């Protein structure tokens, strides 16, 4: 057992997959000798060779496209996109091919690949490095979308993503890469890909978040506890397929819900969660569902980033309003 950061847990999961499954291979920009710009693949090329840990030329569209070809031919490519904003050139391949190869060929060919990328802001990175594009990916039929919130969940969920027979987008919250360590058992055990986790139990209100925002939600829950508000905090973890049962069970208990999302508000994934609650749990509710989100603005550069990202203060404020509602 070892205390690992999230990025180290990703590294261990990749190493485990490479070691135990000869069809697994990694590809991406600067992932070899350099070990990736965040060091997620540190030491893996030395250990598994440059035929299975490939440094690619700079071309995200082609990286995603060759991954489709590799996956269709029985490999399990795990591609790294260096920063979230550079997923966009890969979208053509993801949306037009990876997500629908199985369906197009009625199951004759499939696409067991993983796209890993850092996600979200909060580290004062340069332009286009702090995006949160999960909603557009979750909107794509045929893709699974996973965002871990801790080292242990990163380890177990990444292994599950690699073992999944279909394409999975695995978004790693940049801000959490080295934020804290946690005990991770490197035993190859995966976590279920279709489950939300209850990260904190409570009676009064359900706080829902994923990735980096889970920690803001937990911090807000601490603040609110001192005011006598008992928050249940749910880590969505797998956005798609969404585990509605865990969410509804919690909302049934608390009757109130606040959804926290780092991405811009409109058509964000929080809207999907709210819709599920309204469709299937409207009569549990004692107050309207609220969202605390990034604003519908371009992700600001570092100086205004802190005013864009949902803060503990904004979350606590929304929870108080939700508690006040009749």
């Amino acid at each position, binding site marked *: 057992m070892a205390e690992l950061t999230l990025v180290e847990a990703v590294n261990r999961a990749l190493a485990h997959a490479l070691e135990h499954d000869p069809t697994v291979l990694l590809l991406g920009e600067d992932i070899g000798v350099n070990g990736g710009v965040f060091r997620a693949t540190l030491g893996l090329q030395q250990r598994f060779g440059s035929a299975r840990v490939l440094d690619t030329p700079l071309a995200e569209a082609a990286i995603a496209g060759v991954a489709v070809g590799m996956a269709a031919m029985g490999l399990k490519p795990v591609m790294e996109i260096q920063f979230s904003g550079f997923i966009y050139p890969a979208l053509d391949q993801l949306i037009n091919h990876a997500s629908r190869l199985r369906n197009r060929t009625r199951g004759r060919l499939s696409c067991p690949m993983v796209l890993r990328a850092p996600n979200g802001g909060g580290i004062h990175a340069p332009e286009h490095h702090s995006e949160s594009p999960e909603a557009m990916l979750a909107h794509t039929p045929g893709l699974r979308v996973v965002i871990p919130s801790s080292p242990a969940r990163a380890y177990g969920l990444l292994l599950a993503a690699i073992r999944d027979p279909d394409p999975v987008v695995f978004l790693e919250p940049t801000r959490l890469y080295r934020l804290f360590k946690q005990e991770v058992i490197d035993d190859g055990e995966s976590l279920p890909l279709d489950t939300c986790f209850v990260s904190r139990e409570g009676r009064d209100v359900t706080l829902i978040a994923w990735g980096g925002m889970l920690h803001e939600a937990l911090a807000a829950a601490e603040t609110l506890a001192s005011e006598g508000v008992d928050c249940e905090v749910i880590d969505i973890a797998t956005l798609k397929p969404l585990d509605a049962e865990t969410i509804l069970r919690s909302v049934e208990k608390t009757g109130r819900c606040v959804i926290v999302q780092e991405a811009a508000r409109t058509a964000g994934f929080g809207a999907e969660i709210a819709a599920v609650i309204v469709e299937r749990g409207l009569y549990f509710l004692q107050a309207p569902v609220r969202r605390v989100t990034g604003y519908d603005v371009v992700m600001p550069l570092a100086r*205004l980033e802190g*005013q864009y990202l949902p803060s503990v203060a904004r979350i606590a404020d929304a929870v108080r309003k939700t508690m006040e509602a009749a």
Partner: protein
Amino acid sequence: MNWARARANQALFGVCSKKFLRADEKHAAAPYVTLTKLEAGPMTIGVSFQIDFLRFLSASGELDPATPREAIDPELLLGLYRAMTRTRAYDGKAIALQRTGKLGTFASALGQEAIGVGIGAAMRSEDVLAPSYRDHGAQLLRGMTMVENLVYWGGDERGSDYAVPRSDFPICVPVGTQVAHAAGAAYAFKLRNEKRVAVTILGDGGASTGDFYSALNMAAVWRVPLVVVINNNQWAISTPREMESATATLAQKAVAAGVEGRQVDGNDVIAMRHVAHAAIAKARDGGGPTLIEALSYRLGDHTTADDASRYRDVEVVRREAEKEPIARLRKYLAARGLWSEEQERRLAKDCAEEVERAVAAYLATPPQAFSAMFDHLFAQLPESMRDQYEEARRFAPEDGGHG
């Protein structure tokens, strides 16, 4: 053309047949493409191409006797020298600011000053530049201020609101995408019959992107006034040039787009400016796009977030540093009696003072209000966003605040 032409080892002679041929499987590792011999059938040469490599000033500061006179006009050379020195002074200070926590990530142009300066000096103010993140050498000559560049890398969008080159594109981070913007700008100039040229700069890694190739291809079909310069500094972060492309040169990618492609010593500012100037003049006269591959070397880390010692040999970097552009021009200018130690001291002092003034102005820049993220989103903020705007106002720190 009576330019001094060196068939350097990078120069390439390639042949391709009209017949469908498969290259040797091992071609990716070899500098030359070898054609598989077919058993039978006549073979005719369809197309052949040649890539020139141009250098006037050697690494040790010796000028090729065939250098055209207009390329070595004293005023021109002194201007180029000053601009490169100014770029380097700024660059060094920006790195120091980052190291002390006063600036965000910064991409140094150390050792590549001749590329930006050569291009900037060859452009007219009415032309348009679509730069990457490493092109402050060109941008400073275009009139972008040091303060603006610091504000940008300091994490503030106002640094892209250039007071002088109003039509220049902002720094482009998504690698390769700027080439298409420049092609589109060039189309606008052509459509309106304006004698303007669009110039764009990208890296050797950028030349691996589809955006680069498809934009060049489109620009060639439309024959628009575009100049594309590849700063081949041999590295794309940790990826060496030979792992980016199996072609012997990057300039030859022009052949596949149907435009002229040439190599130049990107550490020789005389040749660099000359080639850029010729390509820009050609574009202005309706001669269509040119691709220039400028050979240089990235002497610093990729950015301040990178540690190049992880993936490259410091000894190689040290050897490459001997070919850097500023020292070689200084040697030449001194030998011609155009430059003295006293002038050097004065220039260094002037540059340092200018940089210090810029840093002071940058550090004194008041923060943007929360509203800045809404104010420039649309020409007019939709009424439906009013409540988000108010929420942001409610949670904005009293002092306007830093994120």
